């Protein structure tokens, strides 16, 4: 273990090269084949060229950024709660965001606020509500959170909000209900570059802020009391992180649905590769999360082509056993 973490720069370089390779190769795979010659074809109107530039490339970029950002959110929660089993999905934050978005769809609303879509705002409010409920239930006394209570509270909030989503689906007509169901599976059904630009502000602000806080996350991961004694204003930091993660999850879930388990798998594997120091773990988690979701999405759209599996189904199929394996460790 000691030797493995000595060359962290090298490991980050390997992850970077792998991420670039996945980004370059992935757009060529899917239900129909796109060749190298199609990409730079002079016939811009050819179907293969359109598939590459208007469907595959934006989709791969969205999957990479979404995976990277979901993974960073998981890493932040794990440091904050000092528990590797914690992520936006296990704490019910993703379900909260889904509830917010489902309410938006059900109410038939259509608005945007300073360029942010209404569905993102509703998803943000749902995520924030769930995280506040879990946090308040997990507090056992001054400056202390109970991990067991927190996970149980997360499960309870998840179940409760999932029940509300089912209730909303029951009240909706068949088309809306089907739309909600497909979207809840978590999918990257991206056409054109609008979804990319929709998530970009959340990704840039979110990842930039998380990177800014790498020193704080290190100290936080050793306990709230220690963090406070090292100079972190814990109560302010917790509020910033809660709002930030809710904002990111809201923005991502509104576009991609609640893609499960990336937030657990990616930080954990990155930690095995590069150690727990967040100055290195943050870029490693970003790169690994991005390339992992992009790979999953590539598999999801090719394995039973021409039919696509929603990528959330695939990450959940991988993530469930992974979670159980971690529980046994």
């Amino acid at each position, binding site marked *: 273990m*000691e030797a493995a973490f000595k060359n962290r720069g090298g490991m980050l370089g390997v992850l970077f090269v792998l991420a670039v390779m996945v980004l370059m190769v992935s757009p060529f795979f899917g239900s129909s084949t796109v060749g190298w010659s199609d990409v730079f074809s002079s016939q811009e109107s050819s179907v293969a060229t359109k598939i590459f530039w208007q469907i595959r490339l934006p989709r791969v970029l969205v999957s990479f950024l979404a995976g990277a950002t979901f993974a960073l959110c998981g890493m932040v929660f794990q440091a904050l709660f000092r528990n590797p089993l914690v992520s936006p999905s296990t704490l019910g934050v993703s379900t909260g965001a889904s509830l917010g978005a489902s309410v938006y769809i059900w109410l038939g609303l259509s608005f945007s606020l300073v360029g942010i879509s209404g569905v993102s705002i509703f998803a943000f409010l749902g995520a924030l509500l769930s995280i506040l409920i879990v946090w308040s239930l997990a507090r056992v006394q001054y400056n202390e959170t109970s991990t067991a209570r927190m996970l149980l509270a997360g499960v309870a909030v998840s179940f409760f909000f999932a029940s509300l989503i089912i209730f909303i689906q029951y009240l909706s007509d068949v088309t809306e209900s089907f739309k909600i169901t497909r979207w809840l599976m978590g999918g990257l059904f991206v056409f054109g570059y609008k979804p990319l630009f929709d998530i970009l502000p959340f990704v840039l602000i979110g990842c930039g802020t998380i990177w800014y806080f790498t020193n704080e996350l290190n100290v936080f991961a050793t306990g709230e*009391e220690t963090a406070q*004694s090292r*100079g972190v204003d814990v109560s302010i930091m917790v509020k910033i992180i809660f709002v930030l993660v809710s904002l990111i999850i809201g923005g991502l879930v509104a576009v991609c649905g609640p893609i499960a388990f990336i937030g657990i798998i990616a930080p954990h594997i990155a930690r095995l590769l590069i150690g727990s120091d967040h100055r290195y773990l943050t870029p490693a988690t970003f790169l690994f999360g991005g390339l992992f979701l992009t790979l999953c999405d590539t598999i999801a759209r090719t394995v039973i082509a021409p039919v696509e599996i929603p990528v959330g189904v695939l990450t959940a199929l991988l993530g469930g056993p992974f979670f159980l394996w971690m529980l046994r460790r």
Partner: protein
Amino acid sequence: MLNSAVELKNFAFRYDKGNVLNDINLSIVKGEYVSIIGPNGSGKSTLLKCLNRIVKGGEGTISIMGKPLSSYSQKELAKSVAYVPQHLSSAFSYTVDEFVTMGRYPYLKAFSPMTSEDQQAVEKAVQLTGLSDLRLRPLNQLSGGERQKTYLAAALAQEPDILLLDEPTTHLDPKFQKDVQKTVCDVSRNLGITVLHVTHDLNHILTWSEKIVALKAGHVCYYGLSKDVMTADHLKNVFETDFHLLADPVEGHPIIVPEAH
């Protein structure tokens, strides 16, 4: 007072469930080694946590190095006051080097690498605590004593004026208790750091401490030189049990033995 490291005037603190500290008046002189004793629940740990704002609030005033506690930002406070807990529960396995480096948090800037001053401070803390050979070892592979020394090293990397120790040797075997305690004493004396040490180990106090604060039910019962506070009557009053003070056959200083029956 100008030479006070820590000064509390009419300080009181309460959690939701009731008062923990009442009307505390204390003045700790710079560079002194002061132990804080008292029964469980007497407010010892809370007193330490009020001094570095792990818990916030309270009535009355606290001054740190001549300045009101309220005038410090949390980062500035961490440059003056460091805290060593009894135990840490980190879910992730940091190495000794990484953990000690975290002591530099109040000096670090975002997006910037550590400066040469930061590296020197970490190096010095590691040297002083004798952890040089363990720098790349994960914390979960250390013995209890080595781990406590790592916590101490991280606190020293903060380059504090005041060191708060919350029962750092409680769960250690006698060899490591002595080892860690000696390291704390040597380092604090060499660097001129003021130490406030919460402990239940009454015999070690007599060896290391210059002064003692005895707390009972949130009040300061006694405060003074160790030899003056550590009498059988005072201890009985504080802990509500009888004690015998015997003479050490080798060194002559008193040994404190609680009555068995």
